[in-house]
């Protein structure tokens, strides 16, 4: 006989067993311990709606064992307790109940100061439903998408009828069922109908059935994500039929959470489907027509029915030979650890009945949380979820109607009788008394009570207790608004993060064409936006010196690169940029910044005039992608005749920098590159190592630099040629680490490192890139307006004596102790022998400070001096060579 392991015990599995059924048959009675008070909890609903049967299965916590098939080899366990879950000493916490009222974490243990910090850890360890399995590798689930005409949620008779109707009309149908179709229905006409419908549906090509598939929620669209064992299915149906059924009304009275208290469907399921008796001597409280079917099932399974508590209108349905208590109510259940006696009140009398179980079938509450997440006509409920308790034929007719798009108005469901005592919320251990306490504290609506007491916020998400919450508020005098159902939100059932993350486990990495070459040379890659770029190649200091003294190559392929052409190209760029463009002669390049309409700088780069071929724009790597939206938006808004081509990804770029850069290039080209033919801040078409490149002379690093823009796939060829030819020149590659230092020594900003979202050119010391005399450009009006306000903040250049220098982010304080700002970039300069930095500094009384004190996070202080102009080679002789 197959079996599974339960806390070291082998448990035999019979055909069709759920884990819970097999455990119950083997004598397990305590299935879990409650969240707050560690109370014993046994099987209750057996339909997957309550939290009582949650156990850890194969390392995964919070598995609903009543809804999970038992399989050979499973390892099942309850949350560890001392000395054991059957006898948990921590249940003694009930003695300290008065220290743990509703919302105690807001009110208790906060005085004296520091008490909460000490006690919180202890409380957290004690509460909860189980440890997170940190050693369990998340399953790698994929994503699938579906676009059916109809999605049916629920594989009962109603759902199957709806799916069959739609398939018959030629529509594509997807039906999802939480469990296995028909598995949890006792033998009889309903089961036969369901299995027959399912078999017929499976044979239709238009229909797909997914079992063990959980609909997580209804999102805008509608879109319904369905978590199944193989994948996360994103379903985009035209319409949805929700046939998720109903759950029996939750019973709340003294002792109602004891093991031995059953909901009718659950007890009948255990007896009828799994052939396990819930108890030998049962009291049955019947309130619906189907409860008598449950009674009959229990009786024929061999239980002795001690009494049937029924409303007067149904007293004729009680089978002969069973004692009927008319118009009575079960008001208490008592026993040591399990039900041994129930108290029934009726006709002014109180009667105690000895028994080993009480089965309550008081009413049906729609399982409507999924349905309530949607509005409109495209998501329709049918069956028990709108009209609970309807007979089989009517339920199937409702399903067919829903498939045709006909909405059935939901039957008004009465709220349960307001509870006076007992556990309202089994998941969170919220008692009726807690709700009363919260009400007196002023939380007087369903939404407020929910948030304060956490009722309905557990794994069942209100399946059982939501109706009681509403009935409590109504009983306290709440009006319609206060009694309103709380907003239903996804997930309708608990969902694993690995399901939500399905198909998303790849971080998206953008690689340049030199990616592999750089790694082969020892590059340490780091994230730069969505790109992987080299930070250094093993020796960032040597790479820095290679740029200052010899020659070095850096892959700058990530830069934004755009071609702009057309009769209105000049007009377009004049309006877009704050600098002059019309006077840029062919062959010349100009540093330019991009401002938004508020006058704030958000990107920078070069404008190169290609003469009749228009312009070539370079922009920061971070802004490369978004620049296209900016350029196209304005071109369209101004209705200008320009053509814009984004070449950011089809071109690569290599920066050859250093005093020997010209010597190196001269070995690879026969085109003229001497200082006179090709001056600084200009560009030329040069063939390097057989590759035709647009070469830009740039000054970011402060050394003689040539930036080779080339067709992307030629990058490796250029790279190899440069390194081969430069061997005797001391050539090295350099990465972002060296670059950040090199440019800092020149005082050059890096957008988003040294700029804020509201950095005007003036604040950055870049007044010279703005030509306010131009009639118009984006941001001009804003700059004029801002220019009239005395400027109080600026990005200043600072030096520190060294050799220790403050880090990025160090706070700046004035000589009089006022807080002035912080450093955006700060490094020690090897060539200058002192620290260099850029930082935001506030003016005091219209005056800028000469000296500041930098405070880093470790409590160290550094004296800084404000300087003007670039730190290194202020006249720029080296880059103009």
């Amino acid at each position: 006989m197959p079996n599974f392991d339960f806390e070291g015990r082998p448990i035999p599995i019979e055909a069709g067993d759920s884990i819970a059924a097999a455990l119950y048959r083997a004598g397990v009675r305590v299935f879990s311990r409650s969240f707050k008070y560690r109370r014993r909890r046994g099987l209750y609903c057996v339909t997957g709606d309550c939290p009582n049967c949650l156990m850890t299965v194969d390392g995964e916590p919070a598995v609903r064992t009543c809804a999970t098939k038992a399989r050979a080899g499973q390892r099942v366990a309850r949350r560890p307790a001392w000395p054991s879950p059957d006898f948990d000493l921590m249940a003694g916490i009930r003695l300290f109940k008065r220290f743990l009222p509703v919302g105690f974490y807001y009110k208790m243990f906060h005085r004296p100061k520091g008490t909460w910090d000490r006690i919180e850890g202890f409380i957290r360890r004690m509460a909860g439903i189980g440890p997170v399995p940190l050693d369990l590798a998340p399953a790698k689930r994929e994503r699938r998408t579906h676009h059916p005409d109809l999605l049916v949620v629920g594989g009962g008779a109603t759902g199957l009828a709806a799916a069959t109707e739609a398939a018959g009309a030629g529509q594509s149908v997807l039906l999802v069922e939480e469990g296995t179709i028909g598995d949890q229905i006792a033998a009889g006409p309903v089961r036969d109908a369901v299995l027959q419908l399912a078999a017929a549906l499976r044979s239709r090509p238009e229909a797909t059935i997914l079992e063990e598939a959980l609909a997580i929620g209804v999102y805008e669209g509608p879109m319904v994500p369905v978590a199944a064992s193989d994948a996360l299915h994103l379903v985009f149906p035209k319409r949805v039929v929700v046939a998720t059924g109903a759950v029996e009304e939750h019973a709340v009275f003294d002792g109602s959470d004891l093991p031995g208290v059953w909901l009718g469907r659950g007890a009948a399921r255990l007896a009828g489907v799994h052939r396990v008796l819930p108890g030998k001597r049962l009291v049955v409280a019947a309130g619906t027509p189907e409860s008598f079917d449950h009674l009959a099932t229990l009786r024929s399974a061999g239980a002795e029915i001690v009494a049937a508590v029924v409303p007067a209108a149904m007293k004729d349905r009680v089978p002969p030979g069973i004692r009927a208590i008319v118009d009575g109510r079960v008001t208490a259940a008592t026993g040591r650890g399990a039900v041994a006696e129930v108290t029934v009140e009726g006709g002014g009398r109180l009667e105690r009945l000895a028994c080993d179980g009480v089965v309550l079938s008081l009413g049906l509450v729609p399982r409507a949380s999924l349905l309530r997440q949607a509005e409109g006509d495209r998501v329709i409920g049918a069956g028990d979820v709108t009209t609970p308790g309807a007979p089989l034929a009517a339920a199937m007719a409702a399903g067919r109607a829903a498939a045709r798009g006909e909405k059935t108005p939901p039957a008004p469901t009465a709220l349960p009788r307001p509870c006076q005592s007992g556990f309202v919320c089994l998941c969170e251990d919220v008692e009726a008394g807690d709700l009363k306490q919260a009400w007196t504290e002023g939380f007087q609506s369903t939404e407020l009570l929910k948030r304060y007491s956490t009722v309905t916020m557990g794994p069942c998400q209100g399946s059982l207790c939501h109706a009681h919450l509403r009935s409590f508020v109504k009983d306290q005098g709440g009006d319609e608004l206060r009694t309103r159902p709380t907003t239903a939100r996804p997930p309708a059932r608990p969902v694993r993060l690995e399901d939500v993350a399905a198909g998303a486990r790849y971080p998206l990495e953008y690689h340049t064409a030199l990616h592999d070459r750089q790694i082969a040379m020892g590059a340490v890659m780091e994230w730069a936006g969505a790109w992987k770029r080299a930070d250094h190649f093993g020796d960032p200091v040597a790479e820095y010196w290679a740029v200052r003294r010899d020659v070095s190559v850096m892959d700058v392929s990530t830069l934004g690169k755009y071609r702009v052409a057309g009769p209105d190209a000049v007009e377009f760029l004049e309006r877009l940029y704050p600098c002059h463009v019309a006077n840029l002669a062919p062959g010349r390049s100009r540093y330019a910044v991009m401002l938004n309409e508020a006058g704030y700088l958000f990107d920078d780069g070069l404008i190169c005039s290609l003469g009749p071929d228009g312009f070539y724009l370079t922009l920061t790597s971070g802004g490369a992608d978004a620049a296209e939206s900016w350029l196209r938006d304005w071109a369209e808004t101004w209705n200008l005749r320009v053509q814009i081509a984004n070449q950011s990804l089809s071109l690569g770029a290599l920066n050859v920098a250093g005093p020997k850069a010209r010597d190196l290039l001269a070995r690879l080209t026969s085109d003229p590159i001497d200082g006179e033919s090709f001056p600084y801040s200009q560009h030329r078409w040069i063939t390097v190592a057989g590759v035709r490149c647009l070469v830009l002379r740039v000054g970011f690093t402060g050394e003689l630099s040539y930036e080779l823009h080339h067709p992307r796939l030629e990058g490796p060829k250029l790279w190899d040629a440069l390194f081969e030819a430069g061997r005797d020149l001391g050539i090295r590659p350099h990465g972002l680490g060296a670059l950040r230092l090199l440019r800092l020594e020149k005082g050059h900003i890096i957008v988003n490192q040294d700029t804020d979202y509201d950095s005007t050119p003036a604040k950055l010391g870049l007044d010279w890139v703005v030509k306010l005399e131009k009639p118009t450009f984006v941001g001009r009006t804003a700059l004029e307006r801002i220019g009239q306000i005395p400027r109080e903040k600026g990005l200043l250049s600072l030096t520190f004596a060294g050799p220790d220098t403050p880090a990025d982010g160090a706070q700046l304080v004035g000589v009089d102790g006022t807080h002035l700002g912080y450093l955006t970039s700060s490094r020690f300069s090897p060539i200058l022998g002192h620290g260099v930095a850029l930082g935001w500094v506030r003016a005091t009384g219209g005056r800028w400070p000469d000296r500041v004190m930098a405070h880093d996070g470790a409590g160290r202080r550094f004296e800084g001096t404000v300087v003007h102009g670039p730190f290194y080679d202020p006249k720029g002789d080296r880059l103009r060579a």
Partner: protein
Amino acid sequence: MPLLIPCPTCGVRPYGEFWCSGELPDGGHGGSDDAEADFERVWLKRNVAGLQTERWFHHAGCRRWVTVRRDTLTNVIDAQL
């Protein structure tokens, strides 16, 4: 499908493939020399609960802009302008 944007070239596509410009002023983008009008246009948004004109850039597709009118309460796009 969730909020769908009607791209004139690519058809109706999910909104995640687009960048939204946000609320568009009555006269569209673009300059006003008058400082007051400029400030209002750039900084003060009406945040209408109802029909709003806005632009969407299909960054994952054709990389062009489309101007639509969307009801901010129902997310129904009733016109492509």
